[in-house]
């Protein structure tokens, strides 16, 4: 039994943290999020050169052949600095291809994804905050050797930055993922509260693709990819939560009111302690879920629901207290605490809110 990270994983974490500090500090995060498409191609290429984009891609396709437990090291550390890079989306698309694609399709797509040449994202459901095969209404129909697509997907992560999109559709033989180039579909920005997590709607109607660009998707694979999305999001919530706790804890030691550091008042210090308790707890649950992706898939669904279900509400509260414990300065646009609050709002419903996950835990637990 060893529920800890390896030397290599710890080094990887250091590397990502250093990268965020040096190449993508908060000033840069703000610039990128405000730019068109909210994407920085140079930074992306640096991440690719460091091997982060091919972590879970098999070595035979140019990746490192590692596991989700390695991937979340990157996601967590990058999220400490609210990285706007579409690493999570790209990794989810990777898992989709590894799980659903033929050898021919893998050989066609994965090497370019490992090298960073192609940015790929994944869009699963057509209704915001509804996780169910029935929430996929976009269609793919065969006509004259081509596959024609119809429907619209709202709130696809990183769709504007992507070169390719994998979109879930009801195909001729059941669920499928349609691989489309960004130029083949209408992508329109859908700004949300959190500009560091750019989203866009994707209108598939009128697009026609080759049959070779359609990947069969079983309901079990759909559930698996949704759960991977939950793991990725929770890992980012661990990193972002830790960062805002650290920022707030530091402030509480320095800010003096009534002649004492505010951290000496229990109204402040006990809130910080509760933030720590929650963060520790969803951190542990998240690491277990990430481990389960590759090493114990039969435990994955429940593990994800525990992790994401815990994190959804806990990180939301951490975001609020991160701002609130700062007083008015926390409310200002210039101060970074507010960016974490916004991230917590973005993360809360992503791949299932706490009600969804609690209900699933009940079902899986025999109720």
């Amino acid at each position, binding site marked *: 039994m060893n*529920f800890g990270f390896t030397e290599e994983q710890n080094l990887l974490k250091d590397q990502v943290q250093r990268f965020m500090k040096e190449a993508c500090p908060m000033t840069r995060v703000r610039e990128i999020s405000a730019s068109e498409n909210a994407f920085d191609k140079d930074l992306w290429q640096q991440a690719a050169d460091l091997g982060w984009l091919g972590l879970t891609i098999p070595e035979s396709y140019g990746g490192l052949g590692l596991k989700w437990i390695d991937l979340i090291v990157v996601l967590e550390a990058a999220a400490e600095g609210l990285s706007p890079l579409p690493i999570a989306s790209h990794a989810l698309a990777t898992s989709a291809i590894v799980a659903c694609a033929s050898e021919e399709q893998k050989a066609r797509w994965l090497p370019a994804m490992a090298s960073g040449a192609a940015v790929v994202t994944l869009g699963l459901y057509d209704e915001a905050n509804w996780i169910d095969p029935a929430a996929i209404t976009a269609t793919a129909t065969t006509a004259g050797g081509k596959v024609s697509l119809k429907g619209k997907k709202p709130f696809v992560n990183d769709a504007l930055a992507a070169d390719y999109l994998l979109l879930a559709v009801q195909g001729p033989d059941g669920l499928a993922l349609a691989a489309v180039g960004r130029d083949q579909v209408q992508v329109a920005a859908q700004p949300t509260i959190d500009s560091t997590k750019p989203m866009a709607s994707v209108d598939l109607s009128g697009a026609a693709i080759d049959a070779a660009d359609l990947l069969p998707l079983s309901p079990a694979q759909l559930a698996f990819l949704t759960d991977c999305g939950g793991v990725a999001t929770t890992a980012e919530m661990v990193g972002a939560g830790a960062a805002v706790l650290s920022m707030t804890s530091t402030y509480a030691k320095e800010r003096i009111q009534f002649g004492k550091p505010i951290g000496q008042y*229990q109204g402040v210090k006990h809130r910080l302690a509760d933030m720590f308790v929650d963060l520790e707890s969803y951190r542990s649950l998240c690491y277990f879920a990430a481990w389960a992706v590759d090493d114990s898939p039969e435990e994955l669904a429940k593990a994800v629901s525990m992790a994401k279900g815990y994190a959804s509400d806990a990180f939301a509260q951490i975001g609020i207290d991160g701002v609130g414990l700062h007083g008015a300065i926390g409310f200002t646009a210039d101060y970074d605490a507010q960016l974490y609050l916004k991230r917590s709002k973005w993360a809360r419903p992503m791949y299932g809110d706490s*009600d969804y*996950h*609690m*209900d699933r835990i*009940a079902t899986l637990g025999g109720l």
Partner: protein
Amino acid sequence: MDFDYTPREQSFREEVRDFITENLPPKEKRDKNFLATWLEKVRAKGWVGFAWPKEFGGSDGGLMEQAILKEEMSLAKAPPLGTSMMGLAWVGPGIMEYGTEEQKQKFIPDILDSKVTWCTGYSEPNHGSDLAAIQCKAELQGDHYVGNGQEIWTTGAPWSQWIILLTRTDFNVTSKHDGITCFLVPMDAPGVEVRPIQNMAGDKHFAEIFFTDVQVPVENRLGAEGEGWKVTVSALANERSSIGEVTQLQAKLDDLKELVKNSKRQGKPATEDPKVRRTVAKFEMKISAMKYNGLRYLTKQIKGEPLTSETSVNKLHRASLEIEMDDFAIELSGQAGLQLKGGEEAVDNGTWSKGALNWPNVVIGGGTPNIQRNIIAERILGQPKD
């Protein structure tokens, strides 16, 4: 990262399981000699004081094996491995670390053999959370000390033979942590008077103890004069792994789920009520969080990384779970849930209603939630002391 056990750990787990199958009959089949036989057998196995050094009669058991032993015993709802919970938890370790050769010879074997039960005299009427504010007085007079003062909330005092007692030998100190001295005192010493206190659940587990001119020989002092705080802190640090609590809570959760399956809300199955489902799921999620927190901390310990005060995280979870689970079961059962053991409609023979009155054992006994939050904020997050 892996959750595999080495062949040695695996075979140890099997050994424990086999032992339990062989030696733990179902409750209704246990005769009155059962406990004595059980204690003798676990002792012969070397599982009492399992982590203690061999020279003191322990087994030098590793951290992982300790966790396995605890987990399996707790899964089987086995009786404790010794009758002196506090003797095993901190008195013994305290004596091994600070005791004289004579004290080790005299006290350690009896703790392991369940011959002597210890209680703990830390809290006094005027201080509980503020543990170091000791007022109970001990004065050196020749070859013995004379003790005067009062302890309170002393668990097991009515049936213990010995007490580990904190006293103040010096009132002229700038820091309250100085001038404290620790003693090992027989409960039948002249001048020791125990008055049991009944708690709200009706039990008389704890007591107040009055010490009037009690003579304690110098050789019963544990550690040097004035060193009592150090002795206490390091002895208490032995209480660590929460693995046993997690299995207990999991068993309680299973019972709660059974109750839910057999309950109705306004005439409809409780399993269909979203609030019921989410509440039970949250319990399960928190217990799981405790489990994986515990495994993460255990891994750290095995790797030799010191823990600061991370165990307070699980203590806080446990405190809220202990209160919320029983209350939820009662709420689910309406007035019938309020009946105690023996009541004609009592639910699960009053387990939940009793639990709803018993939570202070866990929530207050080992340091209150506010104190746990202080510990986390100050020792882990580095906030200033209040």
